[in-house]
């Protein structure tokens, strides 16, 4: 899954998990550095999502076929 597809929730949860694993210790130097880099990357993804977000609002409209979504306001 590329960074573009990952949801905020997933990135955020994985970030906190990465921190916990790195803090737990018992890792080699290579593993520690790899976790550090992944954590920083996930943090960047999270921040990007938060900064770029704009609330999208649509409304349900009944039509003969069922419902459709239209932009609201």
């Amino acid at each position, binding site marked *: 899954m590329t960074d573009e597809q990952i949801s905020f929730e997933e990135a955020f949860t994985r970030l906190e998990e990465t921190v916990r694993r*790195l803090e737990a210790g018992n890792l080699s130097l290579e593993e520690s550095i790899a976790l550090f880099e992944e954590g920083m990357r996930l943090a960047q993804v999270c921040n990007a999502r938060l900064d770029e977000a704009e*609330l999208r609002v*649509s409304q349900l409209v009944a039509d003969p076929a069922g419902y459709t979504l239209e932009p609201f306001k």
Partner: protein
Amino acid sequence: MDPRPVGVVVRYIKTLLETDDLLSDLWVEGEVSNYSRSSAGHLYFTLKDTEGQLRCVMWRGRAERLERLPQDGDQIIVHGYVSLYEGSGAVQCYVDAIRPTGLGLLQQQFETLKARLAAEGLFDARRKRPLPAFPRRIGVVTSPTGAAIRDILHVLGRRYPLAEVILAPTPVQGDDAAPQIAAAIMALDEYVGVDVILVGRGGGSLEDLWPFNEERVARAIFACQTPVISGVGHETDFTIADFVADVRAPTPSAAAEMIVPDRAELSARIAQSQARLGRALAGWVTRARERTRHQQGRLARHTPAHLIAQRRQAVDEQAQLAVRSLRRDLALHGERLGGLRGRLLALSPLATLERGYAVVQRLDDGQIVQSIQQVGPGDGLAVRVADGVFGARVVEGET
């Protein structure tokens, strides 16, 4: 001045009241307060509104026929006549019938429905679902106009613009509102698919909020697979929808706050995580250094120089032990010698001489004289004492 006795005046007022056309047969509307029931079974209460109050009494005979006894807060209409109770001088309405007002009826319906749905388990706490922590799609059931939707969108836009909001617009008061609210909930749940549904409207009277007390809406919320949060009216308004929902919020804005995290808080937590990553990595390096130092320390304890020093120390200790042992033996011998010397000295004849005894010898042949038979008068003797010898001649002897 022509004073009349109190009883006369009171009776006069009573007569006035009882002969008045209006007061002898009327309906009165108001709110019940100070309700009580005497041991004899008569009902006493006060009917009030913002401008006045009237004491009421209903005798047991009539009261027994009531389907439901009045309670404080009930909006009712009573029928009866107004008179004066001479004993207390109080104006009272003597009630023979009680009806609920429109509002009173609604109140009763609310209580009845609430009890029935509770018994069926619609309000059961165990059934309540948790709200998702990071909802991606949020369904909202409310009026497309009005303050509620504005407030909700304002809160969501500020706190969590990552989400997508889908509004299912419905009327939120009036007779046709309840079925449309129920249909909107079902449409969001089954047709559109969202992570959480917010159902609500702004403040209003009991009649305004009534659609959210309807059974259709309650059952639609209960049947909904998606978690539902209710935000109806103001803090003090509790509707049936509030009891069935998975979470109740006091207002629509409060509901919006409860379903999403705050963007600013999330930013702070992300920054915190980054700091912790940095500290953890730095900590790793520090710990690695310490481990190396520790290993170096262990190595140092096994170098040849160290081993030699250890051996040297062992030898030293042995030597010291040997010396101590030798000294102990010498001391022991010394003591024994001392002891023997003492005994020798005690046995020595010199000691005897020093106590005053003498050794006597015959001058002519040196025999040591032990008996008087060995000497006669005139014989020469040598007498040895502790510090020397002197001559002596026997004078006389006796046994």
